[in-house]
């Protein structure tokens, strides 16, 4: 069945259905002239386009859909990546490149890619985006296995992204082959900080101080500080009684209580003079030899 014939059938079917939503009108208008220039007239530059183009470009050049989806959580990007995988026609990319409204673009792209009858059913009830997409995918997909997997994984309104990734993994590994003329991109470094960290060379001894050396250094510093403090602090030698070389004392007046006796003694020529006071309790040990 040729595209021209499918287009006529689809247009006739859509005309017969009474569709009263703006989205459907836009889709119908686009479908009425399913040519790429007409679709591009609807284009307005929005951020969505960049995402779509980026996803499409990566999917096209890397050959692996999961590579895109693993690190992305953007629903729209996933959807367009899935669409790209199931239909590699140029018309799909052209339709997606002129996107303003997500739903309208998707439906237009689906129609341009595969104007089967099932698409009409999906467009006729364009209220739930995800439901429409999943319903439209079987019609747009040239590989029914992908649509089946998507339905099984996502029909129950579970995590859409996880379902898409799970469903796309086997399809991509089996049907999508990496391009041979694509050079792998250089690994993206995570940050400037990581880039500046020097890598240790196993052949060169590390200049970092190991923990044992650090402990030894601290102990040495503590010991040095201890000895310095001891050297600076007043020592017992400093508090020692300093006896002059010459000690000459002359007792001029001397008196004691009636109960005590006093003696003056000099043992050495320049030694100190002793004034011995005997209170009556001094033992003979206090008496000099």
């Amino acid at each position, binding site marked *: 069945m040729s595209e021209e014939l499918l287009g006529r059938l689809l247009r006739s079917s859509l005309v017969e259905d009474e569709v009263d939503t703006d989205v459907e009108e836009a889709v119908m208008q686009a479908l009425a002239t399913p040519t790429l220039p007409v679709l591009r007239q609807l284009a307005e530059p929005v951020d969505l386009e960049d995402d779509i183009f980026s996803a499409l470009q990566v999917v096209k050049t890397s050959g692996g859909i999961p590579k895109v989806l693993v690190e992305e959580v953007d629903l729209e990007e996933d959807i367009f990546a899935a669409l790209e995988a199931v239909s590699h026609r140029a018309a799909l990319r052209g339709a997606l490149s002129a996107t303003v409204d997500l739903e309208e673009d998707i439906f237009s792209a689906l129609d341009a890619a595969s104007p089967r009858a099932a698409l009409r059913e999906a467009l006729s009830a364009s209220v739930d985006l995800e439901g429409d997409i999943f319903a439209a995918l079987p019609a747009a997909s040239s590989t029914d296995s992908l649509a089946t997997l998507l339905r099984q994984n996502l029909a129950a309104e579970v995590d859409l992204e996880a379902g898409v990734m799970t469903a796309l993994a086997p399809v991509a590994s089996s049907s999508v082959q990496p391009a041979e003329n694509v050079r792998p991109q250089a690994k993206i470094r995570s940050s400037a900080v990581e880039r500046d960290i020097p890598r240790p060379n196993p052949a060169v001894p590390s200049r970092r101080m190991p923990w044992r050396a650090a402990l030894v250094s601290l102990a040495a510093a503590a010991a040095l500080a201890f000895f310095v403090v001891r050297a600076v602090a007043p020592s017992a030698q400093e508090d020692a009684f300093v006896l002059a070389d010459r000690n000459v004392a002359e007792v001029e007046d001397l008196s004691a209580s009636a109960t005590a006796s006093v003696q003056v003694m000099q043992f050495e020529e320049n030694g100190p003079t002793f004034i011995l*006071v005997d209170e009556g309790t001094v033992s003979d040990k206090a008496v000099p030899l």
Partner: protein
Amino acid sequence: MTRRLALALLLALAPLTSLAQNRPPPPPSAQAGVRQVSMELMVVHATDSRPGVDPRLASLASSFRYFKYQGYWLLSTQRSPVSVGDGATFSVEGDRRVKVTLVSVDDERARVRVEMSNRDGKLLDTTVSINRNGTFIVAGPKYQDGILMLPLRASY
């Protein structure tokens, strides 16, 4: 790391060196017209219960050997600056007091009056002329199992 460690040590030792520089100044030197003398009284316990000589009393060990006690230990050291005509009172173990009065002083000698008393009254009253930075010792008051020896030095 070595430079950092050395710097840390220098910073840590800096206060210590400043502490070393903050030592007390030397006693009053021989200036013309000496009017003040630093009187230092040490309390030494002569005992048999603890043999040995206190390292701080090493300079007096030769004098102690004339006594029969086995140990000589420093109990306290007291210092007080006194002027001519003024006195300083020191507390001594055994509820005793020693009052030292500077009678006169010149470049060579100082005359000091020493009064020792206990609870019962004055025990000793003497005036001693001592050479500059010289020492004499009052000994005999009973303390515990031994006696007290009171080296007194006039520093100026």
